[in-house]
């Protein structure tokens, strides 16, 4: 459904050139939950921005159902890491979530229904008329997720969405994402630096190398559904997978000389 082939991205030119991504290829099938994990500074965000059409790759291409992505496609929803800066502080929850729907050809009733369903699915009914800054960080990120869901994307791209919330909230939000993914039948690409999170959430995990970035390996995650924060993480397969990915990243990092990592 979504194909990344031969993708590379360099910043700057001449002697100051930075190879953020060297050569990346992988694909995401319909309905799949793919986690992308890699060491910090390995261009995960760059990759996701290229996939969303926010950034033009230096070479290679991203294709959505065979169509080359050269600008943000309507089928893609995006959840940013910085929830406090991607929500509009001058709009209530309702208006924030309805904002992307304004230019879609929808009736008023249809639009309201989409907004209400999305808010209900992230458990924020009753906060409709609050402003984002009246809510906690975790709740703000739920609003951002609701906004993406109401947009009815076929693919949801998530850029380290839970990197700045506390551990308990993070576990709750992980389970929330798994729930809404089923409810909305959406394909998810989830970028994270947290190996546990990647294994817990994903159907497959794409492991990236340090920069210049390439795909190190792609691992299927054969853990039973539905996932559970306690039981899933107790399974020997879970421990095995996370250890495998950890070693693989560690080994690769030790092989490469220390480069100042671009952020």
């Amino acid at each position, binding site marked *: 459904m979504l194909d990344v082939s031969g993708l590379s991205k360099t910043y700057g030119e001449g002697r100051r050139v930075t190879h953020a991504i060297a050569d990346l290829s992988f694909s995401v099938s319909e309905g799949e939950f793919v986690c992308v994990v890699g060491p910090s500074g390995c261009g995960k965000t760059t990759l996701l*921005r290229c996939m969303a059409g926010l950034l033009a790759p230096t070479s290679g291409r991203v294709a959505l159902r065979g169509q080359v992505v050269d600008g943000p496609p309507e089928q893609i929803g995006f959840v940013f890491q910085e929830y406090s800066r991607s929500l509009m502080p001058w709009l209530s929850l309702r208006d924030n979530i309805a904002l992307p729907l304004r230019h879609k050809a929808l009736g008023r009733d249809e639009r309201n229904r989409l907004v209400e369903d999305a808010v209900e699915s992230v458990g924020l009914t009753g906060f409709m008329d609050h402003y984002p800054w009246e809510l906690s960080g975790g709740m703000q990120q739920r609003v951002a997720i609701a906004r993406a869901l109401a947009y009815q994307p076929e693919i949801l791209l998530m850029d380290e969405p839970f990197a700045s919330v506390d551990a308990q909230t993070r576990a709750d939000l992980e389970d929330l994402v798994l729930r809404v993914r089923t409810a909305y039948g959406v394909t998810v690409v989830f970028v994270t630096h947290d190996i546990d999170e990647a294994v817990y959430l994903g159907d497959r995990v794409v492991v990236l190398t340090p920069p210049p970035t390439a795909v190190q390996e792609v691992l299927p995650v054969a853990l039973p559904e539905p996932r559970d924060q306690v039981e899933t993480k107790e399974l020997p397969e879970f421990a095995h997978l996370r250890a495998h990915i950890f070693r693989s990243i560690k080994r690769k990092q030790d092989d490469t000389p220390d480069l100042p990592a671009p952020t």
Partner: protein
Amino acid sequence: MRRSRRALLIALEIAVPLAALAAWWVWSAGADSFYFPPLADILATFADTWVFERVGSDVVPSLARLAAGFGIAVLAGAALGTALGLSPAARRVAGPVIEFGRAVPPPALLPFGMLVLGVGDTMKIFVIAIVCVWPVLLNTIDGVRGVDPTMLDTARVYGITGPERLRRIVWPSALPQVFAGLRTSLSLALILMVISEMVASTEGIGYFVLESQRSFAIPEMWSGILLLGLLGYLLNAGLALVERRVLRWHRGARASALR
């Protein structure tokens, strides 16, 4: 504790001006100075002059020119500021002109204005507008440039473009800065209103103050100064009230960021 402190501050806020007035009253009553007539006389003159005899002949024309000049400056400054804020190339080209324009001391434009536009309302409105436009313009440019990149990315991802992007994202986000410009401009507008009336006019509050001084009607002069101070205070308070309403979200968001 906090509550009683707040109450104390509010009480002081009211008491200090009253005390200043009382001190002035007492001092001027015994001063017997030609230049500082007793406050009682000034207030009596104030009542005779401004309630409401000269309202139609002087206050309304003054305020109408102020409103017209300020209004034109806000519209022009916001429109031009948006265009320049969005285009780095345009900013580069216009940069020196803007720096020059805002560096010209405002009263220096009066002779030019009189030469080209005569001594009527048009000249005064022009002078007020051309002076007030800079703070609005510069703050709008900054506000529009300073929109959070993540917000702009959000707009792009969700297909919010063109006029909708401007109306729903860029302008609301720039508004706190624009208001900072409005506050500066409003003070300038009052100053230029008075100066333009002192240089060339047959009516207006500025004209009245100068004429009173020339005819040694000192209590009248003081009453005009008081009125100007009062008008300035009320105009700023009015703008602050509008700002509080329009930027309620901004105060809330800032307070929560500090929490």
